[in-house]
């Protein structure tokens, strides 16, 4: 037994040393302004990706609002330095936690990621990781692996599915599994080089650890664990494994680790501005445990309490377990405090009273709703209830 423990201890030390060595040795494989050189595979992939990028540009799920794009782009460019002009960043409206990178510099950031990270430092951790995939030519390596194990026609779609987190055709799963082990190594390389990028840009490298701890907390809160492709999938190391590795070397390599308060405030400002859109999409997923974890985090980082309370109300009302309606009522009331009440909280308080057959109270809140939001698109429905004599 003692002998086995000694071997484990030695292996642990060797692993840590190996990680530290990898971190110091890692350098980008390509220079800024890189263009494809391999005529057989690489140029073909770039051409295909060009068409894919056009599809993204025309996608109905592309978030085009200037301020949110500028926020993400500024962080990406700070991390990327001289590689900034190589990147094209697209924010995609998708409530799940993911980002992806292609060989030609197309970076996709899902809105579900923006609502889960707590600061610009944490956003930079993910962006640095994606940038590392680009500078290490990981896409090309993976495409080549796939090409060797599959017919050429299927390679591109499948490769994209792997890289972007979109579902993989069932019939081709065996071939995909063959390259997954390799991609886990690439993920670890991207983690380590990503940290190097973000640290060089002046971001707090320990933010990477916080990102994965938040991922673990959300998973623990989830009633249905995530089995979908994406950052949680088997193509990526588990969050537990990541935290363990990162905690073993980030504090050793980087001293004076302090989160940037301005970076947190910038992120909170962005969340406050887009919170209704971001959290409505999350509520639509009907995954209440995950929503709870996110709301607790948003409370901790200082997102507008009225907005948070409104979505606590939404979560309780839609979950509708015993006692939830009372909790929803309390949350909605909290969401109407101060000089910036959430108008929809009044409306939903009205609906709760209507459900409880207390029509005068329902009408009181419906009137408040229309006062605050006279141009509400559901005004006709509210006026119908205001004219009701009995619920």
């Amino acid at each position, binding site marked *: 037994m003692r002998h086995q423990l000694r071997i484990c201890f030695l292996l642990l030390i060797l692993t840590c040393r190996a990680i530290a060595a990898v971190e110091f040795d890692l350098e980008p494989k390509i220079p800024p302004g890189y263009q494809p050189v391999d005529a057989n595979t690489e140029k073909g992939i770039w051409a295909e990706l060009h068409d894919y990028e056009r599809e993204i540009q025309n996608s109905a799920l592309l978030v085009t609002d200037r301020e949110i794009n500028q926020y993400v782009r500024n962080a990406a460019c700070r991390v990327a330095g001289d590689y900034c002009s190589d990147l094209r960043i697209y924010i995609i409206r998708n409530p799940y936690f993911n980002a992806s990178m292609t060989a030609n510099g197309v970076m996709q950031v899902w809105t579900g990621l923006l609502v889960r990270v707590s600061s610009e430092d944490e956003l930079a951790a993910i962006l640095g990781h994606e940038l590392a995939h680009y500078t290490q030519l990981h896409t090309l390596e993976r495409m080549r692996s796939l090409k060797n194990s599959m017919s050429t026609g299927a390679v591109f779609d499948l490769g994209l599915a792997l890289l972007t987190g979109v579902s993989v055709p069932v019939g081709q799963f065996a071939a995909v599994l063959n390259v997954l082990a390799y991609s886990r190594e690439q993920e670890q390389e991207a983690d380590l080089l990503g940290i190097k990028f973000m640290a060089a840009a002046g971001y707090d490298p320990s933010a990477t650890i916080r990102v994965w701890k938040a991922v673990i907390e959300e998973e623990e809160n989830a009633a249905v664990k995530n089995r*979908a492709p994406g950052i949680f999938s088997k193509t990526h190391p588990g969050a537990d494994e990541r935290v363990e590795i990162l905690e073993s070397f980030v504090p050793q390599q980087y001293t004076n680790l302090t989160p940037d308060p301005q970076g947190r405030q910038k992120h909170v400002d962005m969340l406050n501005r887009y919170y209704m859109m971001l959290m409505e999409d999350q509520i639509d997923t*009907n995954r209440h445990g995950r929503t709870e974890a996110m709301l607790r985090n948003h409370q901790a980082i200082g997102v507008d309490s009225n907005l948070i309370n409104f979505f606590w109300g939404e979560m309780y009302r839609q979950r509708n377990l015993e006692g939830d309606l009372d909790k929803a009522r309390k949350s909605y009331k909290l969401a109407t405090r101060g000089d910036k009440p959430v108008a929809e909280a009044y409306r939903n308080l009205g609906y709760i009273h209507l459900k409880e057959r207390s029509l005068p109270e329902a009408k009181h809140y419906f009137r408040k709703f229309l006062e605050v939001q006279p141009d509400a698109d559901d005004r006709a*429905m509210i006026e119908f209830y205001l004219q009701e004599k009995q619920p």
Partner: protein
Amino acid sequence: MNKVLFSIILSLSTVACMPAYVAVAPGNINYDGLIIKTDQAWNLAPTISTPSARKGSKVWTQDGILLDRIMIIPAVADGESLFTTTSKDQALPAFKADMLPNEIEELTESSLVKLFKEGEVVVQTSNLRPHRFGEHNGLLFDMNVAVSDGPNYRGITGALVVDKKLYLIFFLGAEPYYYRKHIDEALVIIKGARV
């Protein structure tokens, strides 16, 4: 010559195996107590083309279900979902007999997100308003469905609850052409539904 003959036989045998769309003639049709009146002929989609449709649901189309569809979902009992799924991950929301109009709107929105594939669609509803379906109060609302790799859809839903059962019909048409082409007839069908 042999190749041509082989191709024809293969094509015919493939067509013979394909499930057929069935014509729906103009007139009154009763689906599980939900009476629909249509002034024009529609095509009833085979169940294999609509695997998420619950038992008793019907899907009508003019130009193909990817371009336009009217989905008729009659008699959803308390605790049942608008669609079916074999995936445990999907967490389909269930209808509750005491749901108010805003909750039926949310139920539809959330169910459509699951139907189209979570994470690859944004469903937005608006203009919730009352509507009288014969002798019963009900509701109407508009919908926009943005799909990651398909067209934008626009549509309308009509719903009413009678004897604790939900009766719901929605129309979705690809923007702009197919929505405009069929919205008038869809409105006649949805607004004219009776239980």
